[in-house]
C-alpha cells in the first residue's frame, strides 16, 4: 500500500496545488466545450457501468491479507443545478475534512467513496459518477465532473438516474456481509418522475439492462420502477438519506412521498455536510450516541457548540443503530485478517505455514 491509498493532507495539498481551486472542474469543462464529452472516469456509462467497491487484499505467502478492513462504500450525489452550481467546488474544498471525519466513525473499515453530481434531463449530462475510490483518486475524479448549473427551471431535477445507479448498478462488498453502505443525495428540488428507458440508456449506455442483470437484478425495460421503488431497492443495500437544503414546501412534499421522513435531513446550507454525514454514520454504526454526539462534533470536528446542537437536532430522528442491528455486524473481518482466496469474504481458520518455514521433507532411504 502506498500514499495514494489514504487521503493524507500532504497528498491532497500536492494535488490541490495543480488545480484551479475557484473552479476545480474548469479543465473538465474545457474538455466538454471541445466536444470530447465526459472523462471516462466519471462517465456512468464507462468502465463496465457497474461501480464496484471491493475489499483490498495483498498476497502474503499462500494467503491474502486484508489491507484496511472490509470496504465500506459511501456514495454522495450532489445537485449542481441553479444555486448549487458551486457544490463541486465546495465538496472539493471540504474533502479532507469529510474524509478525516468519516474515517473517525468508520475506523474499522476501508473507506471508499463515490462522488456523483446530477442535473436536469435537459442538460448535457444528467449524471456524472465516479468510481468507488480511496485516497487522492477521490479528489482527482471530482475535478473531472461537469456541473452545468442549468436546471432549466422546470420544477424539479433528475436525481433518479443517480439513485438508479446506486440501487441497481453498484456492487459493494459490504453487502456480502449483510451490512449496508451509505448513500446521500443532496438537493433542494423534487425529482422528476418517471424513470425513463431512453434516459437510462443515455446515462448508462445501451447495455444498461444487461448490466443490471449482470449485477443480479431483473428489470423489465418496459415496466421501469418509479422513483419510490428505486429508493426502496436502494434501501435494501444502503442506509440512504436525502438532504434537503434550504428547500421549499414543494421539495418536502415530494420527497416525503418517496422516502421515510426519518431519512430526510433538513439543512440551511451545505457548509456542514461533512459533519452531518459523520454524525449520521456514527449514529447508524453505533459508534456515537445522541448523548455524546455534541462532544464529538465539538472536539473532533472543531465546530462550535451551537453548530453541534444544530447538527444534533437535524439528525436526531434517523434510525439510530441501524447498522449495528444487522447480522454479522460484530463478526466482520478486520485489517490484517488472512484469507485463502482473494475474493473470499471470511478469513481462513487454517493458516498454512509458508514455503521455507516448513521442515524439509525427510528422505526415506530404502
Amino acid at each position: 500500500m502506498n500514499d495514494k491509498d489514504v487521503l493524507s493532507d500532504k497528498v491532497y495539498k500536492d494535488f490541490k496545488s495543480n488545480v484551479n481551486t475557484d473552479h476545480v472542474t474548469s479543465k473538465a469543462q474545457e474538455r466538454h466545450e471541445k466536444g470530447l464529452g465526459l472523462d471516462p472516469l466519471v462517465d456512468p456509462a464507462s468502465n463496465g457501468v457497474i461501480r464496484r467497491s471491493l475489499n483490498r487484499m495483498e498476497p502474503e505467502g499462500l494467503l491474502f491479507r486484508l489491507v484496511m478492513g472490509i470496504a465500506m462504500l459511501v456514495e454522495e450525489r450532489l445537485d449542481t443545478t441553479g444555486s448549487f452550481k458551486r457544490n463541486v467546488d465546495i465538496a472539493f474544498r471540504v474533502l479532507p475534512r469529510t474524509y478525516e471525519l468519516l474515517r473517525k466513525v468508520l475506523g474499522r473499515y476501508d473507506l471508499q467513496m463515490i462522488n456523483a453530481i446530477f442535473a436536469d434531463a435537459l442538460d448535457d449530462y444528467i449524471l456524472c459518477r465516479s468510481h468507488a475510490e480511496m485516497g487522492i483518486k477521490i479528489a482527482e475524479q471530482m475535478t473531472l465532473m461537469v456541473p452545468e448549473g442549468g436546471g432549466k427551471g422546470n420544477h424539479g431535477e433528475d436525481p433518479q438516474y443517480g439513485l438508479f445507479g446506486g440501487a441497481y448498478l453498484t456492487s459493494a462488498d459490504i453487502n456480502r456481509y449483510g451490512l449496508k453502505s451509505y448513500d446521500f443525495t443532496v438537493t433542494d428540488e423534487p425529482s422528476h418522475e418517471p424513470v425513463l428507458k431512453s434516459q437510462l440508456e443515455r446515462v448508462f449506455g445501451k447495455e444498461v439492462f444487461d448490466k443490471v442483470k449482470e449485477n443480479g437484478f431483473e428489470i423489465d425495460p418496459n415496466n421501469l420502477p418509479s422513483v419510490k421503488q428505486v429508493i426502496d431497492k436502494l434501501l435494501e443495500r444502503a442506509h440512504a438519506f436525502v438532504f434537503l437544503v434550504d428547500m421549499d414546501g414543494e421539495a418536502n412534499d415530494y420527497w416525503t412521498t418517496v422516502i421515510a421522513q426519518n431519512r430526510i435531513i433538513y439543512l440551511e446550507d451545505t457548509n456542514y455536510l461533512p459533519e452531518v454525514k459523520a454524525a449520521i454514520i456514527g449514529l447508524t454504526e453505533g459508534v456515537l450516541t445522541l448523548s455524546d454526539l455534541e462532544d464529538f462534533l465539538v472536539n473532533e470536528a472543531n465546530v462550535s457548540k451551537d453548530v453541534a446542537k444544530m447538527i444534533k437536532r437535524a439528525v436526531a430522528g434517523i434510525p439510530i443503530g441501524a447498522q449495528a442491528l444487522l447480522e454479522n455486524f460484530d463478526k466482520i473481518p478486520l485489517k490484517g485478517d488472512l484469507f485463502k482466496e482473494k475474493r473470499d469474504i471470511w478469513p481462513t481458520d487454517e493458516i498454512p505455514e509458508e514455503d521455507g518455514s516448513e521442515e524439509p521433507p525427510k528422505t526415506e532411504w530404502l
Partner: protein
Amino acid sequence: MNIKGTGNKIYATVRQLASNPNFNLYECLEGEQTYFLKIAKSKAENGTLEKEEYILKTLKEVSDNVEIEYAKKRTRPDSVLNNHFFFPEIVDSFICKEQQNRRVLILGLTSVSKQTSDLAPISFITKRDMVKIDPKTSVWILGKLLKMLVFTHGQNVLVRDLSADNILVNKAQHYVSVLNWGDALILNRELEQKECLIEIVGVTKEVVKLLGGNPTTGEIPEDEQMEDSRYQDLLKKLIRGEYHDAYLAHSDFYGIVRSIWPSKFHPYTTK
C-alpha cells in the same frame, strides 16, 4: 425486579403498565417515589429511546427558558405557563447490562401527580370504565391538549402518537400529559400546515370520543350543559380541519368556551 440505574439507584418494578413493539412500560419505585420505567424491547430499540430522551430533554430546556421569559412579562405574578406538565421528565437514562444491554428510561410526571397511579390514559374512560365525560370536563382536556400543541408545534415537534392510550389525565387536578414520545419527530424546519392540522384534528377526535360523539363528524350527544350549538359547532370546525395553527385553535377555543361557560373549576364528571 430490581434495576440498577446511574449512581447505584435501584428502581424496583411494581407492575407492568403497557407494552408496544418498541418498549415495555412499568410502574417502579425509587425510595418512596413512583416513576415510569420504560425499557427497550430489544437492543434494537435502544435508538428509539435515545431519541425520545433527546426530545424530552430539549422540550424541558425550552420550557424552562420560555417560563423565564414569560416571568419577565407576565401581568399577574402567580401566572405560569407550565408547559413541562405536558411531557415526562427524564429522571434517569442508562443501558442495563443485566437486561441484555437494553436502554432504560426512568420517566417522571411528578409535576402533575405525586403517584403514577393518579394518572390514567383517557382510553380507560370509554373502554374500561365504559362512561362518557360531560362537555365541561371535555373543555379542560381539549383545551390543555391544544395548549400542548401550541408549545410543541412552536418547537417544530410533532407528537404523532396522540391516541387515547397515550394521553394521560389527572382527573382530580385537571392535568393532561402525553406519556410516549418515542414516535415524536423533532425537526429543524418549520412544520407544514397540514402536519399541524393532523394533530389538532387528532386530539379533537379523541375528546369527541370521550363525549360519546362521532369522531368523523364531531357530532356529540345533546347535553343540558349546552344551551346552544356553539360548543358543538366549535368541535365540528376543529374536526373539519379548519385550524392548521394550534395557537389560533387554542385562542378561538377558549374565546368561545369562555363565552359559554364562565371560568370556574368543574370537577371531573362522567355520565
